[in-house]
């Protein structure tokens, strides 16, 4: 599975404007009419690393977008909130990521 950095062809240390230019270039070469899957992939990649906040979030939770099943198994396998280490926690606070991101993912049954 390619990382967003690979999809947009930018280095791991790329800043906002490098990512933005790479994104525009990718979109230009892959219009939504031509190949929707490819276009969606570019959009998702851009969403996950376009600014500092999203990059932090990506570092912390990148399984969420990449491996939905693993996330589900985790959510159902344990009642514990997700564990993060001290450094991640500090990063998270600094990034001002909403508290909701820290909660365990609860999945409520649909009413019938």
């Amino acid at each position, binding site marked *: 599975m390619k990382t967003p950095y690979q999809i947009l062809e930018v280095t791991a240390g790329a800043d906002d404007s490098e990512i933005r230019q790479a994104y525009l270039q990718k979109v230009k070469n892959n219009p939504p*009419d031509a190949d*929707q899957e490819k*276009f969606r992939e570019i959009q998702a990649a851009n969403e996950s690393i376009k600014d500092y906040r999203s990059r932090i979030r990506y570092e912390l939770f990148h399984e969420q977008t990449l491996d939905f099943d693993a996330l589900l198994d985790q959510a159902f396998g344990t009642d514990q909130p997700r564990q993060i280490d001290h450094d991640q926690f500090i990063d998270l606070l600094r990034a001002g990521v909403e508290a909701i991101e820290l909660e365990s993912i609860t999945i*409520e*049954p*649909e*009413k*019938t």
Partner: protein
Amino acid sequence: MNELIIGIDLGTTNSEVAVVEQGQVRVLDDGGRKILPSFVGIDDNGEILVGERARNQYLVYPERTIKSIKRLMGEDTHVDLAGQAYTPQEISAIILKRLKTIAETSLGQMVSKAVITVPAYFSDAQRQATRDAGAIAGLEVVRMINEPTAAALAYHHDQSAAQRMLVYDLGGGTFDVSVVNVEGGVVEVLSSHGDNHLGGDDFDQRIIDYLLDHLRETYGVDASKDSKAMARIVRAAENAKFQLSDQPYARIEEEYLLEHDGSPVHLSVELSRMVYEEMIEDCIDATFDALHIALKGAKMTAADIDEIILVGGSIRTPCIRERLLDEFGFEPHGELDPELCVAMGAAIQAAMIGGQQVDTVLVDVTPYTYGTSAIGMLNGEYYPFTYVPIIHKNSVLPIRKSDAFATSFDGQEVVDVTIYQGEDPDALNNVKSGEFRIEGLQDVEAGNIITLTLELDLDGILHVSAQEKETGLEKSITIKNALSRFESAALDTAKQRITSLFGQMETGPDVVEPHEEEEETSTAPEIEAAKKLIAKAESLFDQVSAEDREDMIDLIETLSNCIKANDIEGLAEPSEQLADIIYYLES
């Protein structure tokens, strides 16, 4: 290979069709007219009328004429046209068919594909209805694009500098506002907001209410029950609105509007721009509220915007420009005709899809959040209809998102899923987009996991599918809104019905009417006299025989055409004849 695809702006009040030829955008005309009024009517012989002629007939036969059908698109309803019930999709299809014919006549070749614009804030149901209208009209709708986005494309066409634009689109029936970033050949919509029922029609309605109040107070008469008087009041209100865009005052004069207690009622009143602007202030406020929501959605403030693009006929209302100037500190753009630029953008998008070399890529977003409901917490309590948003507003199209849910009791074989559109944490306060049922689930304990996937395609139409995680059992449907949606059989029937209606209809621009001026500026006494005569004649319609009425209508039409063409000489003969008939009727 280049394929011919036309671009259509299917408007509430006016519709247009355009194409790109050799890299140039051209709005196609019908005998000199680029704007087709979105009116549909049936004439005396049961023939269908579309455009200017239907608009003219509205004054005389409102019951046989439909206007502003776009306002009903996506609703499960019918309109009555000369005793027959039609769906909004069918009426829109009649307009589309006419536009198709205009394009075919003008281009000298058959047309079968179109890009149609819709208000950015059109819901899934309204988009679906528009697509159905295209199918009924025999047009394959290769793409629907948002009106403000189309306008941005039209403006961007010849320039390449990076810019942040705000598109303010106030038409006849809808308001849209979009924040668009243009950079490196990519036209990227960052956010959209709007109101599907806010436009020039509402301004007209305010004046109409004012006139009805005036008649009630002055004559103690309720004109709203009289359909002919109403048609004239509607027309007078719109004319007054136009005047007030240019002048501080407008005079509204309708003689012999109706009879009350045996004596004629004349409408004569003056309306000032100030009073008018007070009447519509809440509408304008609403557009600015939406504008702020759009800016917020793009994480911007007014200071971040480089230019403003004005779209839609209603932006000619002076106070709108003033307020935009106040807010942004610079004058908005208006080089392109605000009524034509949407069709032009549609043509550009059509050319891009059709394979003509156009150097722009369009990236658009959904203005709505879509989700479902589940048992959850709301205000600290368990609540069965907690909203679970899945696709968030201002997400780039196309988009696909999934969420997982679990069955709530052992042996549960069926799950009903409702899809909502909106942002309220209580799902029931949002708009229900559709419902569907997942059946045949495994007979297992509670907690059977169902993955729900929502997908918005490039047209902004929602597709829903669900999968049982264990078995991979798939259920896929496009949102069904029961009756407002056409099943394919019903589509075919509608298509035949509309086609046969057109069987008797004149095709092509055979009725070349003289160019209509926006406003008759001429006030030659002959014209004044003719207008009075027409008003008088119309007030007598109720009391005359069908034959006399026929003659009168013909004469009125001739007179109207002369007035439009400012043909004073031509007025003489029909005026005399009409005066004779009136004299004879009254004596």
